[in-house]
């Protein structure tokens, strides 16, 4: 058995290696012949030669990006896990902070990068953006992990008079580890992406984002590819590190029976006025925080706008009508493509996650490719895609699909991997086919994760579209943001950021409502 597994693994490695070599050879030929978009895809040998020529530049750029990513990763995760524990202990706190959490998640880094660069100095904007990229994913993973602990095991501890804290310590923390690790796995490339986006948004001499931006105008595909590959390598390695860690920690510790208890926690207070007050507080808290941060930062009022300033800009000022018109036109361009891309990315992820259970071989062969393309930080990817796909809507669509697919696939694959053994043994015992087993157990059991994936995807889709618009297509919200940056139209910069965040929050909330309805009918928990 064991030797068989090892042999299979070895075979897989060698075929994987063979496939990679074939792919490289193909790429080399295509590149040498200049078949793609007139040399937009240089052969690997050119890229390597260019990397070697540029070797003196890289250490400083990589060092700067790594520093910001690691610092942001550490700070963001520390805050996220602490917050996750607090939220798991107090559902009321979770409800109160809901607005802030979603806003922190949904705010498109591309939109606030220029704002951060204006109001902070040094490495602070980069670290902040990296931390923000990490916070929501890890916080959600922590809360899901803690709240989906085995309620029967919790009963044992409570039956001995164990306090809330004891339950947390003995049952929930350890039970949450796989979930948190899955979160960190997604968070790690996010931190790199956040750091690069911030470099991109302004300031500083070093960093891969700065380097990329500096090389973008020169039309040197081989250097752009080199930077993209290095950025991908860093993000991919950080992902692989956590994937390896979770593989070592998981294994024989899967729960052995399916927990069927209907969760009782999380029932909101019954009194209507209390509910309304809570909802109001949830909505107002992010705005209060925004206002407080502006006041505390002491940034000049010309640059740093409060919620009141933005409202005035959009509705009361002289140019209000013109500003509204520009904003609405941009939205009409951005929203449709966002939805199409998101739906496609999500469908692809769900299909693939299911296939990974039905056809493990196929997924083994596909996985390395998916990982490489998907951990590639977006900013590094976009210029390359521009070279290949041009500046049309298909570019936007592909970028959106690729940014939504990755987190959705990881979330779903994780959910499907968590389906307990005994639940699948049952249909198998009745001679069910792989597909029947899938339909009866795996898909229903992974439904909560499908919803979680959808929630994760909503703001990402918007971010992907905005980045493509900013960098390439010159349409929609992203372009409006970029233009306003050029015109020093701070009111519009803040308005676009606020509108995109509010939109994300609203869509997110719609998904949550649908999720509650469906899962409640199926007697499943809604992971927060």
């Amino acid at each position, binding site marked *: 058995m064991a030797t068989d597994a090892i042999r299979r693994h070895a075979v897989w490695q060698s075929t994987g290696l063979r496939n990679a070599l074939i792919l490289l050879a193909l790429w080399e030929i295509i590149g040498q012949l200049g078949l793609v978009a007139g040399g937009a895809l240089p052969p690997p040998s050119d890229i390597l030669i260019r990397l070697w020529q540029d070797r003196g530049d890289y250490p400083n750029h990589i060092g700067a990006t790594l520093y910001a990513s690691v610092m942001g990763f550490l700070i963001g995760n520390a805050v996220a896990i602490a917050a996750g524990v607090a939220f798991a202990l107090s559902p009321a706190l979770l409800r109160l902070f809901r607005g802030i959490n979603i806003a922190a998640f949904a705010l498109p880094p591309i939109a606030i990068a220029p704002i951060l660069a204006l109001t902070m100095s040094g490495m602070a904007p980069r670290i902040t953006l990296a931390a923000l990229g990490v916070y929501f994913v890890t916080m959600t993973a922590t809360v899901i992990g803690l709240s989906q602990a*085995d309620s*029967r095991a919790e*009963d*044992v*501890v409570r*039956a*001995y*008079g164990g306090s809330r804290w004891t339950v947390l310590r003995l049952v929930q923390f350890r039970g949450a580890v796989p979930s948190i690790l899955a979160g960190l796995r997604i968070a790690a490339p996010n931190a790199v992406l956040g750091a690069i986006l911030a470099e991109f948004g302004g300031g500083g001499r070093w960093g891969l984002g700065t380097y990329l931006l500096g090389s973008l105008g020169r039309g040197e595909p081989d250097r752009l590819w080199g930077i993209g590959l290095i950025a991908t390598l860093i993000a991919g390695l950080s992902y692989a590190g956590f994937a390896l860690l979770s593989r070592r920690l998981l294994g024989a*510790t899967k729960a052995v029976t399916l927990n069927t208890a209907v969760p009782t926690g999380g029932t909101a207070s019954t009194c209507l006025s209390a509910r309304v007050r809570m909802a109001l507080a949830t909505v107002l808290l992010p705005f209060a925080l925004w206002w407080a941060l502006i006041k505390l930062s002491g940034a000049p009022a010309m640059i740093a706008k409060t919620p009141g300033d933005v409202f005035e800009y959009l509705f009361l000022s002289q140019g209000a009508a013109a500003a509204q018109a520009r904003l609405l036109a941009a939205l009409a361009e951005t929203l449709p493509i966002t939805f199409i891309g998101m739906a496609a990315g999500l469908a692809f992820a769900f299909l693939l996650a299911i296939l990974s259970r039905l056809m493990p071989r196929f997924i083994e062969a596909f996985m390395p490719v998916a990982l490489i393309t998907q951990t590639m930080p977006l900013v590094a990817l976009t210029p390359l895609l521009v070279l290949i796909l041009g500046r049309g809507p298909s570019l936007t669509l592909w970028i959106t699909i690729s940014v939504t697919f990755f987190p959705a696939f990881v979330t779903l694959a994780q959910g499907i991997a968590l389906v307990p053994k005994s639940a699948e043994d049952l249909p198998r015992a009745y001679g069910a086919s792989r597909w029947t087993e899938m339909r009866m157990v795996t898909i229903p059991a992974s439904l909560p994760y499908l919803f979680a994936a959808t929630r994760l995807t909503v703001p990402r889709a918007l971010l992907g579209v905005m980045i493509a618009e900013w960098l390439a297509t010159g349409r929609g919200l992203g372009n409006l943001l970029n233009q306003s940056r050029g015109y020093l139209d701070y009111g519009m910069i803040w308005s676009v950021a606020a509108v995109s965040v509010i939109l994300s929050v609203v869509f997110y909330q719609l998904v949550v409502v649908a999720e509650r309805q469906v899962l409640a*009918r199926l007697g499943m928990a809604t992971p927060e």
Partner: protein
Amino acid sequence: MRQPDGIALTGVSKTFTGRGKVVEALREVTLACPPGSFTSIIGPSGCGKSTVMRIALGLETADAGEVRVAGQRSLEAARQGITGVAFQDAALLPWRSVRRNVEVPLEVLGRTPRAEAAQVQAMIDLVGLKGYENSLPGELSGGMRQRVAIARALVTHPQVLFMDEPFGALDQILRRQMNVELQRIWADTGSTALLVTHGIDEAVFLSDRVVVMHANPGRIAGVIDVPFDRPRQPPLFSDPAFHKVCDRVAEALHGN
């Protein structure tokens, strides 16, 4: 002064409301287990046996009525280490070895498992899992997992012992063996025991009294005293007098 009852439920009612369905799980259940007595609850599936136990343990709050364990409120009794519990479902922590699972109650009560290593080992030996101390629950059979849960229930020397079908997944021979062992441990510790079971012979063999429950709403339909001397020996299982008591329990179960 008279010692308080080991377990006392007075007029306990409980209704579950979930997903548009209302289930009256318990109506006016009154049950008193004198200190040191052994009581079994028997009844059809879904009649509220587990609910009685969960309410007595303080895991569920009753809609009406009063609950006392050793004269105290359930959770207070639990915090003092008075209660021990084995659930219908083994409910082991999948990432902990057998030994570390048995140590859970000690940890919850703030005792040091290291200091009671001998007791932990004794309980593991008692349930016949010597040699499996370091195995993970995923590597054990269903019956073995249940035996870990029994060892875990006994490790604190509880004064009041709750058991919800603890022998459900055991084979008949092992089950009889465990019945005899349980009787011995219970007699040694002088604890008050409440056992939920589906086995009539098991209930009669072990108990001073068998409480028969009916469903819809869950209620106590009758209490049957079991007069046999203790310690009871396995030959009792084939005694005609034993069968007579079993028949009375079966009659009460089937109603009229």
